[in-house]
């Protein structure tokens, strides 16, 4: 007993010492497996940042802040963010609305946009007219349904003629591959789109998100409360800096393939060639200029108005959160300020 207590005591003191090793304020960023978010995991692998608590990589040294990385599934990431357990999270513009109603949030960095990464894949259905009345399986109240409804709109179809039916994307992809007699159409995202096309030769893409570029946006969001803490803005800067440094590694011929491989390693079993296709469909905002153009442009305002209307119409949010573009005091703010600050310090 005594020995156990001693060991416990030693463990407690040691962990205590460990976090005291860096006196910098620490903030947690949660990310899930997705090409433009795995960037943070790879930045940790490549020692640009150190995702462990109390340890600083070069970027963290530069900004005098400790980034703690936490990898989890997408849905738990959203819950953790909403319950104030973590400071920042990787999520899409559409999924940012609900958390913002409970915790005021600031989008500081767009990481990528879906240009074909969300798709309606069918077997034996060649036109959207044929799709009428056929159940289309995909995750309800998510970007999949958004992509589906927006494409119907663009094709002049009535939403009420179509049956979007809930199914988890991984299960939907499996169902189409194994039992296409019952499951003829699915809306899923990558890697499921590419995997399904690869595994089932008679499957084809009926339509995809390439018709609505810059409407489904993957991004990093920080709680306003975390930003207001001492060092909060430095945390935002460091995260942005890490993202662009890794993008530079991807663009450089010497390190490009290696970095892309690392990003794709846990994403799926796709080859390097196929990963090149994936990052075309998940188009990265690989430079500060591209990101600022999006966050400060007029198209985003129009997009978000549509997205909010969609979410209210489909019972995704109870009420519309207020949104602004700049340093306002709304529920959700899109701010290019932090990207500019990083750009200025280069």
């Amino acid at each position, binding site marked *: 007993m005594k020995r156990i207590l001693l060991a416990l005591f030693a463990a407690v003191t040691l962990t205590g010492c460990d976090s005291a090793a860096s006196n910098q304020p620490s903030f947690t960023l949660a990310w899930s497996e997705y090409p433009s978010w795995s960037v943070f995991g790879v930045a940790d692998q490549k020692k640009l940042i150190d995702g462990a608590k109390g340890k600083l990589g070069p970027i963290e040294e530069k900004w005098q802040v400790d980034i703690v990385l936490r990898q989890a599934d997408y849905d738990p990431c959203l819950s953790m963010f909403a*319950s104030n357990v973590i400071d920042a999270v990787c999520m899409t513009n559409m999924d940012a609305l*609900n958390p913002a109603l409970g915790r005021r949030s600031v989008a500081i960095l767009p990481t990528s946009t879906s240009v074909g990464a969300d798709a309606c894949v069918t077997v034996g259905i060649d036109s959207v007219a044929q799709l009428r009345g056929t159940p289309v399986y995909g995750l309800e109240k998510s970007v999949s349904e958004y992509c589906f409804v927006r494409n119907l709109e663009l094709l002049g179809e009535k939403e009420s003629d179509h049956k979007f039916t*809930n199914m988890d994307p991984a299960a939907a992809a499996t169902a189409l591959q*194994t039992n296409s007699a*019952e499951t003829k159409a699915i809306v899923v995202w990558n890697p499921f789109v590419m995997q399904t096309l690869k595994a089932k030769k008679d499957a084809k893409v009926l339509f995809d998100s390439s018709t609505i570029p810059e409407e489904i946006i993957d991004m990093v969001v920080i709680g306003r409360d975390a930003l207001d803490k001492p060092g909060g803005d430095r945390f935002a800067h460091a995260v942005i800096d890490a993202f662009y440094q890794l993008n530079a590694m991807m663009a450089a011929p010497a390190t490009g393939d290696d970095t892309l491989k690392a990003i794709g390693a846990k994403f799926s079993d796709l080859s390097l060639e196929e990963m090149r296709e994936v990052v075309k469909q998940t188009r990265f905002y690989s430079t500060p200029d591209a990101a600022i153009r999006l966050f400060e442009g007029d198209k985003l305002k129009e997009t978000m108005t549509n997205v909010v209307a969609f979410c209210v119409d489909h*019972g995704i949010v109870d009420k519309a959160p207020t949104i602004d573009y700049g340093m306002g005091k709304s529920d959700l703010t899109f701010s290019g300020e932090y990207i500019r600050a990083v750009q200025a310090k280069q």
Partner: protein
Amino acid sequence: MIRSPIRYRTRVILGVVGVLVVALAYTWLSYRQHQINPTDQTIPTWQQLAAGVGKVLEVDEFSGDRWLVTDVKATFYRLFVGMASGVFLSVVLGLLMGCYSAMEALFHPTLSFLAKIPPTAMMAVFFVLVGINFEMYVCMIAFGVMPSLAQTVYLSARNDVPDELIHKSYTLGASQAEVIWNVIYKQTLPKVLDAARLQMGPAMVFLIAAEWMVGAEGFGYRIKIQQRLLDMRVVYVYLIVLGGAGFLLDTALIRLRRRLCPWYAE
């Protein structure tokens, strides 16, 4: 003292105290979370939970149905048919195995093997065999509970029925079928009911997991979607309903066993 009985009134009071402690702990948790963030949605206050109750009971403007009604119907119908098929299959298999060594040799290794495989992990097999609709949930529950239930029946058929009883029945002129039905089956019934009651938990886990993945209605579906949308008011109301339903089912099955097998000593 160990195992000394307590009065009925004390038992009821202690039960209520247990519930109150849980409710108090939740109140404290929710209070603390709202101190950190006044607009928190993740640990709803009692008021927010009341709003959640309203939301699951009101007519939904998109589907025109009441969520709780739709989901209770879907989930409990699946659970009932799934459990009924599972119990039926297990009783048949278990009795066969308990009565005939050849059957035991044939099924026992396979059942022990299957008993350790969660049916939710081989969803693709069910997709191919029975599709993606109602039958899939039923099969998932039935095949999920069958291995361990069948083994319970088998052990009970072999061990709980004394040889003398079987010989006596033969002496009195019973046929093999009559011995199985009137003697062995009757003796194993209380064990079957108890085992079925205990398998209700795993059955619910399999069903919720399946609805989580492929459902378009039901408890698993609603909890998953609402959790994703951070509407924890609805999620917790559903969890409370689940707990309550489990409690009722448990009590009902114990009553049923007492009614059917009054001779069985607990």
